[in-house]
């Protein structure tokens, strides 16, 4: 549903336009044993061309957040609160349609409708956690890219001798040959050798790293405004991971694409993101610029995460070491602050009673912790 059409999106102090604004998002899974609050009160925004990192332990709700944005939360799951505002600039304005910025609350859009299908893959593309099985086994790399491109890439319909090139409002879908051309180009850009041949390879003929490159090629072939990368390199080994991250950075720079980068891996996020959101058990516990977060973490959970990163050696690719204590049962979350049973700064009588608020603790720096209240 389009709430309003307006001239400009909210901008930041450095003049960048906000692309996506998640406000107090809540997603619940109603399962037999009770209700899992997979995402509970998430608030952040992403500007055009910016990379935002989402980190947290397994099961904290990172993937569910990503799916909520694309309205693809799987079945017993439901968005139960909040808004996801998408500031949409029509990429192919047509005569008679609003051409200025639209604000769309994605939580109210029909999840099977035409609008979300235009956005999915075309404007917000996603790379999933499992690169090995995200390609349909019976179709070639080229077929996959073709599918995305023919759905979402429109080319201006130029008339010969048309004087006013800017006012062209007619578009056409790409042809088969053009789609193939684009596929080859994309495969080349993501660093796949012999792309003219690889375009006809089936998934089983590609290595894990190549498959993930193909996934990136599919996602970027439509020139989306935003890429959601859900642990895009977790399944790959470290040297390939570094190459893939380079490719993503490079493509982001040239296309001014925003990235929501989900990972377990603090080393990776430090090199990719500008701003970081830390999640714990569906709750957002801290949000800050990457430098502030690494040098001046506020929330005890973030501090523990950072301490669990091995300091020595060049290996930034390691997963998080575990933090003291057990991850709580998502059906039986602790009272008060959900982190209190594992928290080194636990204040008895306070942390187990009072639910902490979302407190601003510095410029562009928020934390959900009672240490910073009163």
């Amino acid at each position, binding site marked *: 549903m389009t709430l309003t059409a307006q001239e400009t999106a909210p901008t930041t102090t450095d003049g960048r336009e906000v692309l996506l604004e998640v406000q107090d998002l809540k997603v619940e899974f109603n399962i037999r044993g009770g209700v899992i609050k997979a995402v509970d009160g998430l608030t952040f925004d992403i500007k055009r061309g910016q990379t935002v990192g989402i980190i947290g332990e397994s099961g904290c709700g990172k993937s569910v957040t990503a799916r909520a944005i694309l309205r*693809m939360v799987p079945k017993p799951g439901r968005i139960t609160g909040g808004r996801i505002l998408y500031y949409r600039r029509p990429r192919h304005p047509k005569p008679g349609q609003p051409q200025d910025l639209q604000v769309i609350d994605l939580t109210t859009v029909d999840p099977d409708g035409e609008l979300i299908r235009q956005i999915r893959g075309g404007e917000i593309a*996603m790379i*999933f956690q499992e690169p090995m*099985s995200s*390609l*349909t*086994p019976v179709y070639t790399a080229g077929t*996959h890219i073709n*599918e995305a491109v023919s*759905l979402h890439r429109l080319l201006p319909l130029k008339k010969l001798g048309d004087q006013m090139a800017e006012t062209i409002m007619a578009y056409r879908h790409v042809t088969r040959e053009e789609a193939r051309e684009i596929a080859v180009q994309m495969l080349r850009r993501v660093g796949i050798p012999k792309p003219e041949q690889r375009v006809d390879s089936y998934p089983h003929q590609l290595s894990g790293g190549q498959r993930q490159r193909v996934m990136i090629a599919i996602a970027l072939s439509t020139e989306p405004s935003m890429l959601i990368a859900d642990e895009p390199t977790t399944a790959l080994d470290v040297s390939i991971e570094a190459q893939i991250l380079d490719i993503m950075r490079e493509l982001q720079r040239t296309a001014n694409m925003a990235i929501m980068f989900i990972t377990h891996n603090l080393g990776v996020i430090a090199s990719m993101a500008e701003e970081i959101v830390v999640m714990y058990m569906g709750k957002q516990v801290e949000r800050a610029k990457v430098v502030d977060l690494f040098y001046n973490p506020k929330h005890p959970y973030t501090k523990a995460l950072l301490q669990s990163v091995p300091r020595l050696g060049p290996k930034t690719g390691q997963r998080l070491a575990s933090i003291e204590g057990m991850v709580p049962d998502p059906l039986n979350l602790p009272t008060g602050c959900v982190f209190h049973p594992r928290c080194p700064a636990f204040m008895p009588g306070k942390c187990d009673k009072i639910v902490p608020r979302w407190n601003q603790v510095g410029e562009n720096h928020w934390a959900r912790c009672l240490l910073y209240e009163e």
Partner: protein
Amino acid sequence: MVNYIIRRIGYALILLVLVSFVSFAIIELPPGDFLTQKIEQLRARGDRSAEQQVETLRKRYGLDKPFLERYVNWAVNFLRGDFGESFEFERPVSEILGARLGYTIILAIATTVVTWALAIPLGVYSAVKQYSIGDQIVSVISFIGLGMPGFLLALIILYIAVIVFNQDAIGLFSPEYRDAPWSVGKVLDLLSRLWIPALISAVTGIGGLVRIMRGNLLDTLGQPFVEAARARGLRNRTVIWKHAVRIAINPLVTILGSDVFPSIVVGSSLVAIVLNLPTIGPVFVDSLRKLDMYLAGTCIVFLTLMLLIGNLVADLLLAWVDPRIRLE
């Protein structure tokens, strides 16, 4: 690929020889043979020349020779296209089967088309709408189809057709066309009746297929590539058919091959018997009962042959539809 096919055909031939040998042996297992029964009949009638008649018959059919020699004789003749003579009908086996082959093939094809045209969409529907009322209804029906023997269903339908609708459902033709030469009317008549046996066989065959299709598709719908396809902005219908069903249906290709080809020879014999269809099935069952060994043996060999061809075709089809399967 070519090597693979040649090797497969080689194995198939060996298997065929073994099967023919074993079936020949099994046919001969019961004490006595067709002629023993004949002698009893002739004796009972007090026919004096019985012994002599039988001796000539025995000679003619080579029943006095040792088992191995009889088998080799039979096999060699078989390869020449001479399948022997039926004791029961006293006509060449090839003639008896030939007359019925056409209808059997037509019925097999009709059954397959009806079965698959119903089973695949129902299975897909059931999986996509898992746990819905529709899914439950389809599940109940397919379990009934799985559990109910075809001949019972044939009897029920026959009962309904004859008693309730006062229409005869026996045979593939109405009486007026039964012995008439081929004409447009006869073809239409055939089509108007063909659906009854086809539907009966389909209902009993459909249950398993629906369950398999549903299960496979549910597995496939949970695969990451399905979600990835949806995230590309494809319509649900495209995601389901082009990405999920396309994968989930692959294992069914095997069933197609190993089901259809054998049914060209025997089909569902019991249904055919109940409905009195001029197909090979009833003759085959009868020949086994009456120790009509050349007829039975020929049926078994062709049945095996069809099974082998079916499996080979299924494997080749599978390799064709699924690029992951390599035939080396």
